[in-house]
C-alpha cells in the first residue's frame, strides 16, 4: 500500500487529495532525509574541510548525479534552483545575449505563467517580437501550432511537456525536431514540471536546450528544482545570479567565473531540500515509470468514464477525453456553475481539488473559459478517491443547481 508511506494521511485520514498538480504529498523517506540534514549534518557545502561538511558536500554531489541519471544527462548539466519558476527566470537572464532586435521569442497559449511571463519580459527587454503558438482544440500542441510563428529569426521557443490545465501530453521529441527545421537558430526550453512525476524525461531523445522542473511536484520538498542545460550551451552562457561559490577569482577589473554548473549556483542552496530531493528520485525509481503510467491510466480511465456516466451532458471535460492523452490531470466545467463554488463545496466535504485559472490565463482566454475545476493524481490515489469525488460532486451540483 503506497498510501501508507505518506504521513499526511495519518493526520488527515479522511482527506481525498486530488490536487497533486499543485504539489505532491511527500513520502516518509523524503521527510526523513530533510530532517537528517537538519539534525545530523547541517553544515555548508563546497568549502568546509572537516569530515561533516565533506560528507554533506558528497551527498549533494550524489543528488546531482541522481538528477542527471533521472533525465539521462551529465551531472555538469544539472543546475540546482529553487524550483521551475526560478529556473525559467534564471534561464531568461542567462540567454539575454541571444535575443536581438530583429529576433522573435515564441511561447504557447498552453503555458503556465512561469513559462510565459519570463519570455514575454525577455522579449520586451530586448525589443524583440513576442509570439504565441496556438494549441489545438483539444488543448495540445502540434506542428500546426508552430507553423505560422516560426522563422529564421526565431531565437527562442518555450513550451510545456504537459499542460498544467488540460493535463494533455505534448510529443516533445517530434515537436523539437519540427521546431529545429523551421527555426534552426532557436534555443528550445521545456517546462517539464507537470511531467517529472508521471512520465520519463530523456534529454538526449528530446534534444531540447534547457529543461526545468520542480522537486515538490515529484514527491520532493518545496524550495528545490532542477534546470538542465546542454553542456555545450551552458559553457557559453553568463551567470544570472552573482555571489559566493561561483567565481574562481575576483579582481576589480575582472571576474573569473568557475566551471559549469558552479557558475550558475551562487550562494548556499536549500541543502535540506536537496537531501529530500535525492530520496524523491529514489522513490520514483523504486516504483518505476511503467507502474506509475499504469496507475495514472487506470485512474484517468475510471474518472473519465464515471464523470461521463453520472453527469453526461452537464460536464465538459477539457481535452480529447481519451485517457491515454493525459498525464495525471483532468479539468472540467459544469455549464454555468462556477468552479470556485464547486471547489469550495468539495473542500467542505474533504475533497481537495483546484479551481480557477491555474496560473494559465492565456489558455482560459483563448478557450473562452472563465475558470475550470481541476483534479490531479498522485501515486497514493485510489479508484475509491474518484468514487468519493463523484459522490460529492453529485451533492454539490444539486446544491448549486
Amino acid at each position: 500500500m503506497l498510501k501508507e508511506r505518506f504521513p499526511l494521511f495519518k493526520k488527515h485520514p479522511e482527506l481525498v487529495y486530488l490536487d497533486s498538480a499543485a504539489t505532491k504529498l511527500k513520502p516518509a523517506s523524503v521527510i526523513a532525509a530533510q530532517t537528517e540534514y537538519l539534525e545530523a549534518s547541517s553544515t555548508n557545502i563546497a568549502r568546509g574541510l572537516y569530515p561533516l561538511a565533506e560528507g554533506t558536500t558528497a551527498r549533494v554531489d550524489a543528488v546531482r548525479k541522481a538528477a542527471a541519471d533521472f533525465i539521462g544527462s551529465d551531472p555538469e548539466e544539472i543546475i540546482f534552483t529553487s524550483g521551475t519558476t526560478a529556473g525559467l527566470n534564471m534561464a531568461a537572464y542567462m540567454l539575454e545575449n541571444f535575443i536581438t532586435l530583429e529576433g522573435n521569442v515564441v511561447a504557447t497559449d498552453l503555458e503556465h505563467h512561469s513559462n510565459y511571463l519570463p519570455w514575454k519580459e525577455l522579449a520586451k527587454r530586448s525589443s524583440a517580437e513576442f509570439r504565441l503558438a496556438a494549441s489545438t482544440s483539444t488543448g495540445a500542441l502540434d506542428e500546426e501550432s508552430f507553423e505560422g510563428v516560426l522563422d529564421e529569426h526565431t531565437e527562442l521557443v518555450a513550451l510545456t511537456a504537459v499542460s498544467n490545465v488540460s493535463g494533455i501530453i505534448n510529443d516533445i521529441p517530434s515537436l523539437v525536431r519540427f521546431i529545429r527545421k523551421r527555426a534552426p537558430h532557436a534555443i528550445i526550453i521545456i517546462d517539464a514540471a507537470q511531467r517529472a512525476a508521471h512520465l520519463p524525461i530523456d534529454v538526449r531523445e528530446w534534444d531540447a536546450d534547457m529543461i526545468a522542473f520542480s522537486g515538490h511536484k515529484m514527491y520532493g520538498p518545496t524550495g528545490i528544482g532542477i534546470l538542465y542545460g546542454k553542456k555545450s550551451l551552458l559553457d557559453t552562457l553568463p551567470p544570472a545570479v552573482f555571489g559566493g561559490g561561483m567565481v574562481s577569482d575576483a579582481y576589480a577589473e575582472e571576474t573569473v567565473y568557475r566551471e559549469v554548473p558552479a557558475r550558475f549556483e551562487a550562494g548556499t542552496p536549500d541543502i535540506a531540500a536537496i537531501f529530500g530531493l535525492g530520496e524523491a528520485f529514489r522513490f520514483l525509481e523504486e516504483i518505476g515509470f511503467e507502474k506509475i503510467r499504469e496507475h495514472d491510466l487506470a485512474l484517468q480511465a475510471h474518472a473519465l468514464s464515471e464523470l461521463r456516466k453520472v453527469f453526461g451532458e452537464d460536464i465538459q471535460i477539457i481535452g480529447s477525453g481519451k485517457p491515454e492523452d493525459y498525464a495525471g490531470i483532468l479539468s472540467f466545467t459544469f455549464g454555468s456553475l462556477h468552479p470556485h463554488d464547486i471547489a469550495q463545496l468539495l473542500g467542505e466535504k474533504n475533497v481537495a481539488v483546484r479551481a480557477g485559472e491555474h496560473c494559465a490565463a492565456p489558455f482560459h482566454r483563448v478557450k473562452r473559459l472563465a475558470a475550470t475545476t481541476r483534479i490531479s493524481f498522485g501515486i497514493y490515489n485510489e479508484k475509491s478517491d474518484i468514487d468519493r469525488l463523484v459522490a460529492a460532486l453529485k451533492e454539490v451540483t444539486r446544491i448549486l443547481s
Partner: protein
Amino acid sequence: MSLYQDHILDHYHNPRNYGNLPHATHHAEALNPTCGDSLALDLNIEDGIIKEVGFTGKGCAISLASASLLFEEAKGKETVKMQVLAPEDVLKLTGLALSPVRMKCALLSLETLKKALKSK
C-alpha cells in the same frame, strides 16, 4: 459550517432586483478577471436617495448572492450613507466568514456600487 447557507443559496438562485433599469440615472460595471465574475448595476437616484436598483451579472454563488443582498440593502437609502460602506459592512450583511481567496468575490458588489454612485 458551510459557506453556502440557505440565505446565500436563496439569493444566488433568486437574485433580488435582477435586470436592467431602462431609465437609470447611474450605471457601472465591474469585473474580476481572475475568476471571470462580472456585475453590471443600474441605479435611479433622486434627491440623494437610491430609489431603484437593477443588476445583472455572472459569477460564483458568493459574488452573486453578495450583490443581491447588498443592492437590496442599498434600495431606499441615502447615497451619502452608501458611499462610506466598508468591506466589513458587506461581510456583516451577508453573514459570510470568508477566506482571503474568496473575499474578492463578495467585495465585487461593493466595488460596483461605489463606481455606480460616482458615475453620471
